[in-house]
């Protein structure tokens, strides 16, 4: 009895203490898009009728510690989250029914709910030294886009660098409230609940993927910035290694923790006042044992209005270490380009460039390794004359963009052309967007594009398209728009797409 009375008193005392009013800021946002269009085959038949609805709901709460406004030394705590519902009401029920063997598409779901992010973020704790994030969050750096559930902590020193460490579980498709968008590519993976274990063995079960990473990053100085970053992700659990379903026996499984991805990257950019700037980055993949990405970009400022740049980009496809694709002879691409931007006036800018994309292919029988004893399988055919003579086929490309903008109107042009052994594509879009009386939104976009398929000549086409947009802006951050798209090409005939969008934001 006394204990109960004491507990009640404690609760009452807590409730009775006057709470300080918080100056918390908050916002609630929502984007909704309804899309209606048909997907047609190159012969014009409708294959899918897509009736899509995507809606997001975001919440944010800031200044949870109620610090004085404008105090840049004070710690700051905030929370942000966004959830998404993505549905295709045009999908047939059979496509997602594991028992419907004639129609099921493993991994496909006609309605998906995912938590895009939800994290508590702290900044400038411990006199500005400590920052942290807890929850589902993104990491964006030279290693690419990535999302995980876990915690990140960073220590910002007064010595122009900060150290960052994070650990958690990689966001993976097939797990609750998750999409596969940010996991490494190469594995067809998802929720196998409801699937017969002996069927669809190539569709792998989703399991948790522990991960950790560290980064060292410069801070403070604005003319140079660099980030050294390392990340390791593990695959866990069972994975089918028998690719053919027998229907009689369960597939053979490989089980155990193993590397999914392990990468080290460094990026840097530097600017030299009126003269120019440079950017560079490199990624080393420990599983592949090679540099898989390397880029560099040099910009020269010619006066106030002209920038001339040279770019280089090297890329080797790599995949989740669970995937067999890493063993295939995917070769690097080298992209070299020149581009320029001219700010003709404060309102009118033009950009253009040209590039060469140089591929790599074998010109001789594969050499598995110097001095190694290797027994090619009987079907291995080493004849020299079976290989191309040019090991570096290349494609050419150009692009031209222009933009004229005032406070209420934007007029633009996006054009590009790409030509290569596999095909050509060239064309341009022109568009005008205008807001009338700060409320009425109107837009027109028209495009003319031609593509030539050099591997399937009957798939060449010229396409003319236009889009008409009308909308109403209820408030600075809230508007509804309706778009009508009409595409015409000889392959599919007339194509239409209706897009309705509603953006809402409430801020406190």
């Amino acid at each position, binding site marked *: 009895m006394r204990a109960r009375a004491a507990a009640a008193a404690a609760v009452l005392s807590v409730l009775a203490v006057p709470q300080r009013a918080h100056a918390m800021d908050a916002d609630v946002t929502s984007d909704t898009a309804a899309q209606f269009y048909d997907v047609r085959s190159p012969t014009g038949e409708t294959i*899918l009728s897509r009736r899509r609805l995507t809606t997001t709901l975001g919440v944010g709460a800031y200044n949870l510690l109620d610090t004085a406004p404008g105090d840049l030394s004070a710690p700051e705590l905030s929370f942000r989250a966004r959830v998404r519902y993505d549905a295709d009401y045009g999908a047939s029920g059979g496509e997602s029914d594991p028992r419907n063997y004639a129609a099921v598409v493993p991994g496909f779901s006609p309605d998906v709910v995912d938590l895009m992010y939800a994290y508590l973020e702290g900044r400038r704790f411990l006199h500005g030294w400590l920052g942290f994030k807890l929850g589902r969050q993104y990491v964006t750096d030279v290693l690419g886009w990535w999302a995980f559930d876990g915690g990140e902590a960073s220590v910002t020193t007064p010595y122009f660098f900060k150290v960052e460490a994070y650990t958690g579980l990689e966001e993976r498709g097939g797990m609750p409230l998750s999409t596969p968008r940010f996991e490494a590519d190469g594995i067809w993976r998802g929720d196998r609940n409801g699937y017969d274990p002996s069927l669809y063995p190539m569709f792998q079960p989703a399991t948790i993927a522990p991960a950790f990473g560290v980064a060292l990053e410069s801070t403070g100085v604005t003319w140079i910035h660099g980030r050294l970053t390392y990340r390791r992700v593990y695959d866990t659990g069972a994975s089918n290694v028998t690719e053919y379903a027998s229907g009689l026996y369960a597939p053979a499984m490989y089980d155990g923790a193993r590397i999914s991805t392990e990468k080290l990257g460094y990026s840097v950019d530097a600017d030299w006042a009126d003269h120019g700037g440079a950017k560079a980055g490199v990624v080393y993949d420990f599983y592949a044992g090679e540099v898989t990405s390397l880029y560099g970009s040099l910009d020269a400022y010619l006066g106030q209005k002209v920038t001339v740049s040279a770019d280089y980009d090297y890329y080797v496809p790599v995949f989740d270490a669970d995937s067999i694709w890493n063993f*295939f002879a995917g070769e690097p691409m080298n992209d070299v380009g020149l581009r320029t*931007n001219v700010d003709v006036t404060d309102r009118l800018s033009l950009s253009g460039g040209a590039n060469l994309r140089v591929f790599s292919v074998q010109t001789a029988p594969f050499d598995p390794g110097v001095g190694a004893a290797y027994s090619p399988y009987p079907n291995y055919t080493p004849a020299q004359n079976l290989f191309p003579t040019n090991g570096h086929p290349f494609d050419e490309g150009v692009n031209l963009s222009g933009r004229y903008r005032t406070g209420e109107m934007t007029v633009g042009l996006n054009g590009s052309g790409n030509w290569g052994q596999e095909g050509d594509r060239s064309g341009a879009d022109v568009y005008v967007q205008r807001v009338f009386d700060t409320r009425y939104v109107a837009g027109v976009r028209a495009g003319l594009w031609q593509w030539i398929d050099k591997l399937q000549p009957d798939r060449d086409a010229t396409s003319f398209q236009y889009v008409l947009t009308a909308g109403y802006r209820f408030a600075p951050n809230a508007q509804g728009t309706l778009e009508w798209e009409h595409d015409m090409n000889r392959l599919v005939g007339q194509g239409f797409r209706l897009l309705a969008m509603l953006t809402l934001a409430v801020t406190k």
Partner: protein
Amino acid sequence: MKLLRTLLALLPLLVVVAVVPLALADAPAQLHGLAPLPDDQEVPHNLLPPGADDPDRGPSDVIFPQQHITIRFNHSKHLGGMIGATCKTCHALAYTSRSAQDVLLPKGVVCDSCHDTDHRDLSRVKPGDDAMGQCAFCHLGYKPGDGNRVAELEMPRANLLFDHRAHVDRNIGCAQCHGAVDQLELATRDQLPRMRGCFHCHEMSDSASRGQAKSACDACHLPGKSGTLIKTMYASGTLYPPRWLHNAEHTPDFVLRHKWVAADDSQFCSNCHTEDYCTDCHDGRVRPRNVHPNDYLNMHAIEARMATQNCQSCHRDQSFCLDCHLRVGVAESSPPDAKDSGRFHPPKSIWSDPPMKPGHHGFEAERNLNACVSCHTERDCVVCHGALGVGGGFDPHRNGFLGSCSRQFRRNPRPCFVCHEPTDGALAQCR
């Protein structure tokens, strides 16, 4: 003839009478204080605020909106030895101001002591007796008949966080931000600070232990409506990063190269953009038309094959692409009920038979393996490329594979077992 001679004799006298008084008369008074330099000459770069471009384009219109100055004022004259004023004489408020919203222009009463005027009651300002006490002496466009009305001075507040007192307390002189105003006449927008000049000091980490001169954007830029973003939309325009800052000028082709800015310093982007802005494309569900033009559904195969864009920056091959390719019947593992979209690849004689040339699947796979992965599951390739007993035994490995396979086997043996039986002799070389 006689008359002509008389006129010629008097000519010197006429010259003296006509020219000498003109020569002795005062030259027409040149009006000073209408521009930074007389006759609106270009201000030398060394007199401009630190960080000004050369040639200078002035400060940001968005941060410092355009002004309409209706006052004539000569700073160099007032700050010179003859008058001996200092900045503080007229702008004393600047020494204590904590906000860029404060009005730091001197009130008319500051002028009264020298100009013999009386601005104490602005509804009934009394001019002085001499020329420099007249309203029109300072107020441009003023006419005697205008009474007590002068043209309005339009000087919008800066869209900025700025604490003058904090800077004064650190012994930062006026010229360190405003340039050599003491050598100029009228101070205009051109004498307002340049962002690059701020970075002469604001180059410090966010850590509080190093003082307040942080380079963080929110140290100077106004906060957005909510969250941790800075405000970018103003009546005076939209704020974009300058070219010299990470070379992140948002040019018309920025969509093609923003990856390098974000890859190096995504925190820089997050000063103005939330994750939502990025994921609208990178994890989006509505096709962004500035990236993919209309009718893209029909032309995307060519682009993917050519690797014109890095599809993987927004799409995962084995989920986003494969899902749809399975549904539309273009993928090899499509369900039986999926409609037939027709053969995507060239005929077998080109696609599968030797020699390896453009159009052959081996050539295309080496060239751009991602295009294969967007449609095929592992099984499709294992049929032929799996080791004997699993598949057809066509070796797909890269050059020098044996040099790296043991490392790969140690880290993750799973993919090896997809094509090789555990007892396969070839596998032993990688164990």
